[in-house]
């Protein structure tokens, strides 16, 4: 069992498609949001939408780490790397996210700032150990999936008594963002997504478990089904959501039981609780300020906190006016609705964050989805 081919069986996918078509007859429309960018990518890549009836719509959610990071945070990181004699490390996608004034970390690097892409926070920690005279800052982004590794690195830095390692912490939390989206007003024209059910994130849930979604499902009366990343996982999840919607149920169900438990990864949760505390509020691109939706370092770890160490002050920055990332992240617009999509904004030259990462809704649509639309339009002509 490689946990791959078993979940990519075409004949089984057609059986599931048949069952979904049957279940989808009960209502005129089903609007399902896949919260996670990994799911957005898989749905586009495997052409899942082609297997769904026309009245089952998949809405892309905000679960792409670089997409939700607001411009002001990238501006902070660029300023830090440009003005201080230090090495700034971050994940590769972060380097290409557009910042204010048509800049990016990649461009700051080209102008001479010492900015490195790393695969893991452990690489940044190693760099700090190898160069004790040079300060190393890890620009930490991501959801609960990457937060435990950041916490673990901070604990390791404490154990190693490193004086030249710190973290600019921008970790964000899934349940508050999900609540924000489900709680948005449903009036037409208000930009509300009008979501009937949520495909719950798989990797975030490996860490936090399925339990934290229960109050969200209960409060907003919407079902959540946690899904794996293979085509059959996603088809089965859609079927489970349709059945709940048809039966007016709004429970948290778990399709990805091989990786996700109710309690989650307790060791990872303990690490996060030891090192991080909740911020009062944090700005998300597209979603605005959300209370208690992000982590900062606890005062006990203040010496590893780049915000304290370098006096980083967050300033809200204007997003590119032509870019529809905000509405796309809220689920109220699709990539094809943006007038710069595929023209001014491409994965090679992204204007907006959603075009940067392969998990971003626009990048996924650019790589896979737009060909289907072109084919559909040609067939209709």
């Amino acid at each position, binding site marked *: *069992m*490689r*946990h*791959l081919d*078993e979940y990519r*069986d075409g*004949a*089984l996918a057609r*059986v*599931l498609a*048949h*069952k979904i078509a*049957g*279940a989808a*007859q009960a209502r005129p429309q089903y609007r399902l949001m896949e919260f*996670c*960018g*990994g799911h957005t*990518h898989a749905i586009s890549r495997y052409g899942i939408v082609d297997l769904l009836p026309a009245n089952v719509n998949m809405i892309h959610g905000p*679960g*792409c*780490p670089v997409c939700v990071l607001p411009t002001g945070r990238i501006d902070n990181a660029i300023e830090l790397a440009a003005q201080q004699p230090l090495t700034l490390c971050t*994940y*590769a*996608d972060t380097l290409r996210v557009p910042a204010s004034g048509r800049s990016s970390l990649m461009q700051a690097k080209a102008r001479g700032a010492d900015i490195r*892409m790393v*695969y*893991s*926070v*452990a*690489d940044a920690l190693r760099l700090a150990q190898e160069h004790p005279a040079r300060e190393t800052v890890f620009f930490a982004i*991501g959801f609960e*999936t*990457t937060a*435990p*590794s950041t916490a*673990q690195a901070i604990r390791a830095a404490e154990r190693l008594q490193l004086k030249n390692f710190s973290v600019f912490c921008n970790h964000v939390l899934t349940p508050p963002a999900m609540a924000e989206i489900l709680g948005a007003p449903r009036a037409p024209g208000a930009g509300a997504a009008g979501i009937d059910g949520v495909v719950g994130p798989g*990797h975030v849930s*490996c*860490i936090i478990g399925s339990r934290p979604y229960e109050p969200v499902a209960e409060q907003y009366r919407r079902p959540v089904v946690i899904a794996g*990343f293979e085509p*059959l996982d996603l088809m*089965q999840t859609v079927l489970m959501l349709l*059945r709940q919607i*048809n039966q007016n149920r709004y429970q948290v169900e778990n*399709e990805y*039981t*091989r*990786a*996700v438990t109710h309690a989650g*990864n307790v*060791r*990872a949760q303990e*690490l996060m609780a030891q090192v991080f505390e909740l911020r009062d509020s944090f700005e998300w691109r597209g979603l605005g300020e959300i209370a208690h939706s992000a982590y900062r370092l606890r005062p006990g770890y203040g010496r590893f906190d780049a915000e304290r160490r370098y006096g980083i002050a967050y300033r809200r920055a204007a997003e590119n006016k032509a870019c529809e990332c905000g509405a796309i992240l809220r689920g109220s617009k699709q990539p094809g609705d943006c007038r710069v999509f595929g023209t001014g904004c491409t994965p090679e030259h992204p204007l907006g964050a959603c075009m940067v*990462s*392969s*998990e971003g809704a626009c990048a996924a649509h650019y790589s896979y989805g737009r060909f289907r639309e072109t084919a559909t339009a040609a067939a209709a002509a």
Partner: protein
Amino acid sequence: MGGGLSMCLAIPALVVRRIEAEEALIDAGGIEKRVSLVLVPEAAAGDYVVVHAGYAISRLDPDEALRTLALFAEMQRDTPEAEAAA
């Protein structure tokens, strides 16, 4: 960090062998890589793990995987008519 190993696009990785106390060599679709097992200390050689940005975050439970696959197999045997009544 290629497309397949981008942050959120993890594929199941086989633990080839443990290296140090908290590290292991994994095989993710033919690509071998050192990852941290600090978040999944119970993972052993032969296990599959979900790897995310250099850290294993979950050990795949083979019994649960079999249960999910059995559910799919069962579905294939079901008649489509049964669904309409669900």
